[in-house]
């Protein structure tokens, strides 16, 4: 099946150690022109380190690298036709698309840049990829999806042999993702080899030819995806078989804990919903559908008009302190931006939202006695793996950070719990643990709202799923009628079809 007899890149027992500690061991594979290799593994498995060695950001400690059959000590990157699109965008927001595309090698001389040539090159590149983006628009004025495409256009401009894509789809909507995939297919046809890193197994199976699976820094498997069923690959990544993930849910009570009526803001319009004590309500939808804005408005972080009732008592307009008093908690989707105090300890992070649940203060506001013990107990309950509760929270893995944040809020004994992407950036093992916690919590009578872009997650843990699209609630499914295909198409269909949709 190889067009060229010679692999464009071949690595043999590539390893990397930092100050004596091996973090990646024995990565071995061959990549032929036009092939897509998926690099898979849980968080912390060593994907990023491997990626950084493959794009030239890190020099391997051990191992051999052959580029087009010739052994090289390390990868140089662009000079060898290799380029990477990292998770963090590397574009200059205030520059135009054309300037961004050519920034690494501007035509003309240093003191006299040839802007016409810049624009010509940019136009050519975008036409080559078959995308329509205004080359004179500032990058910051584009949506996340288009920015990602500009990023790929920039990377593939200089890399005609190997393109490395690190989680390129996480911030994309479904149509944007399709566009990205079609660009990938086209590059593949032209013989560009790609290394594709993704959490989403369906994407891996849809796009890649072969895989390299990493676990705890070691390569645990490689081969052609057509020979390895998905369950088997997932088990390989986790190191154990994943159990049946859907839960046998209890029956929620009849008592409505939270209801909202015609809640509106500039990001969503006349949304009404109700959730009962003990019920888990999933909210599905695409990125940008207004789900986060909706739940943040319920929690009082954003302004909105309309009515919010808790136990049939009107509480709007909401404010964070008022909602906290009413027993509402909100676990943010963006840990880094508005969840974690990353320089502070696990202890301080755990008690940040409800000190009174951790500390007995004889005089209000004074003293922290008992905090240490209470946090230690909580960390154990939440199964947080940390060297000590005094360690700063940024030293923890994504999954453990998320458990700290969940613990922070669950410790306040909430009655209504809003979880926004509760398992984003969390590995499979921790994800299952978090799901168990959510279900156990609801069983105790807590009303839970889960917002998630991971539909499988919602199908697994929800009693009911509501679908949101461009600021409107467009459908509702009871657990016995869950239908992944219907939910996805409802969430992703265009606005014009909206009137024809009938919620089941």
């Amino acid at each position, binding site marked *: 099946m190889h067009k060229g007899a010679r692999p464009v890149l071949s690595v043999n027992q590539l390893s990397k150690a930092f100050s004596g500690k091996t973090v990646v061991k024995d990565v071995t594979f061959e990549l032929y022109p036009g092939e897509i290799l998926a690099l898979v593994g849980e968080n912390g498995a060593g994907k990023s380190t491997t990626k950084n060695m493959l794009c030239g950001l890190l020099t391997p400690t051990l191992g051999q690298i052959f580029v087009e059959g010739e052994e090289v000590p390390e990868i140089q990157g662009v000079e060898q036709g290799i380029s990477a699109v990292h998770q963090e965008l590397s574009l200059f927001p205030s520059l135009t698309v054309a300037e961004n595309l050519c920034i690494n090698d501007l035509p003309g001389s240093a003191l006299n840049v040839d802007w016409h040539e810049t624009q010509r090159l940019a136009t050519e590149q975008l036409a080559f990829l078959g995308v329509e983006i205004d080359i004179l628009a500032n990058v910051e004025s584009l949506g996340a999806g288009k920015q990602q495409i500009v990023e790929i256009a920039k990377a593939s401009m200089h890399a005609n042999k190997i393109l490395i894509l690190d989680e390129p789809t996480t911030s994309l909507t479904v149509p944007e993702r399709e566009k990205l995939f079609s660009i990938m297919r086209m590059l593949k046809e032209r013989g560009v080899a790609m290394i594709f890193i993704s959490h989403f197994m369906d994407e891996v199976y849809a796009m890649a030819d072969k895989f390299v699976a990493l676990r705890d820094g070691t390569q645990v498997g490689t081969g052609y995806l057509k020979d390895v069923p998905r369950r088997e690959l997932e088990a390989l990544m986790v190191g154990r078989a994943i159990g049946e993930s859907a839960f046998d849910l209890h029956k929620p009570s009849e008592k409505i804990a939270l209801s909202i009526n015609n809640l509106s803001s500039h990001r969503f319009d006349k949304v009404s919903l109700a959730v009962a004590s003990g019920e888990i309500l999933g909210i599905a939808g695409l990125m940008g559908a207004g789900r986060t804005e909706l739940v943040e408005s319920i929690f009082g972080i954003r302004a909105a008009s309309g009515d919010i009732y808790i136990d049939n008592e009107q509480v709007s307009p909401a404010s964070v302190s008022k909602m906290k008093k009413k027993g509402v908690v909100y676990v943010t989707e963006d840990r880094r*931006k508005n969840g974690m105090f990353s320089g502070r300890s696990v202890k301080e992070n755990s008690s940040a939202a409800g000190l009174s649940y951790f500390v007995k203060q004889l005089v209000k506001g004074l003293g922290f006695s008992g905090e240490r013990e209470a946090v230690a107990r909580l960390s154990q309950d939440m199964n947080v793996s940390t060297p000590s509760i005094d360690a700063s929270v940024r030293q923890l893995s994504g999954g453990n950070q998320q458990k700290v944040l969940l613990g922070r809020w669950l410790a306040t004994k909430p009655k209504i719990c809003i979880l926004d992407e509760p398992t984003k950036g969390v590995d499979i093992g921790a994800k299952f643990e978090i799901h168990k916690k959510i279900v156990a919590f609801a069983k105790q009578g807590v009303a839970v709202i889960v917002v998630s872009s991971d539909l499988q997650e919602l199908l697994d843990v929800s009693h009911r799923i509501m679908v949101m699209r461009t600021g409107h609630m467009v459908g509702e499914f009871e657990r016995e009628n869950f239908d992944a295909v219907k939910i996805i198409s409802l969430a992703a269909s265009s606005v014009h079809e909206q009137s024809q949709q009938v919620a089941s």
Partner: protein
Amino acid sequence: MGMSSIVKLLKSYPSLPIIAALLVLFSSLSPYFFTAGNAESILLANSVVLIAAVGMTLVFLTGGIDLSIATVISATAVVGGVVMAQTDSVFWGTSAALLAGLLFGLLNGICVGFFGLNPFITTMGTALVARGIAFTLSEGIAVKGTPEVLLDFGFELLWGIPYIMIVGIFIVVICSLAMSKTTWGRQVMLFGSNREAARYCGINTRLIETSVYVLSGLLAGIAGMVSIANLGNALPGVGDTLLLLIIGGVVLGGTHMNGGEGSIMRTVLGVTILATLTSGLNLLGIPFYDQLIVQGVLIFVGYTLAMKLSRT
């Protein structure tokens, strides 16, 4: 003491190696350096800076800066001096100085905390206003008529420590306890670490941010009164040269400008470094302007060291 506890100590107090080096260096170069008399003069000369640096530390911990602190010292000193000249009462003078400091602090705090204005610009504006008030009220000259009681207070010792430094130590202790033992202190740290996360936790972020500027103003007021006790008169320009010493002390101690990392005890050490340096260089007869160069270089070196050590 094991290796790990030394590492921990250096992480908490990254400026310790510099202090140790300076003490060894000056003790070996000058026989007068390590004497009670010299210690007394160091303590006398630095209580104003120490008190203000505590205020600056609180502001730094939230990720802000208070550029007005130095000229607010001048303004409050003049206000206190003028009131004392009229009433001959230390009580009324102190009350007036503290009230003035509080008002300047409130002005900064409300602008930054409630209106979201940039701390650098806001406090720069306040700094000019305070300086103008100081010179206008005093007509540009030292305000005379300081009560005897206050003058005595400026020179007398308790157990070998000047009273005005005891005021400084008292403030250090109170503010340190407030940071480590109160919910407010915890919230200041959390706010400085990530203000958005603090808001999502239901912490009253506006109030927290405002409070540190108010305290900074109040401490500047105390520093203003201490400056009168120390120098004998209320001088309208007393704070003018102090700003860099105050910021330098905080930074050398290892409190981060971005907030959420640092402590008042670190600042105590940072201020000590600059105080020791000045005293040592004076004893060695180094001219004032050459001292500035040494101070500048030390701030570079010390800051780099502080950042490296506190992050390892």
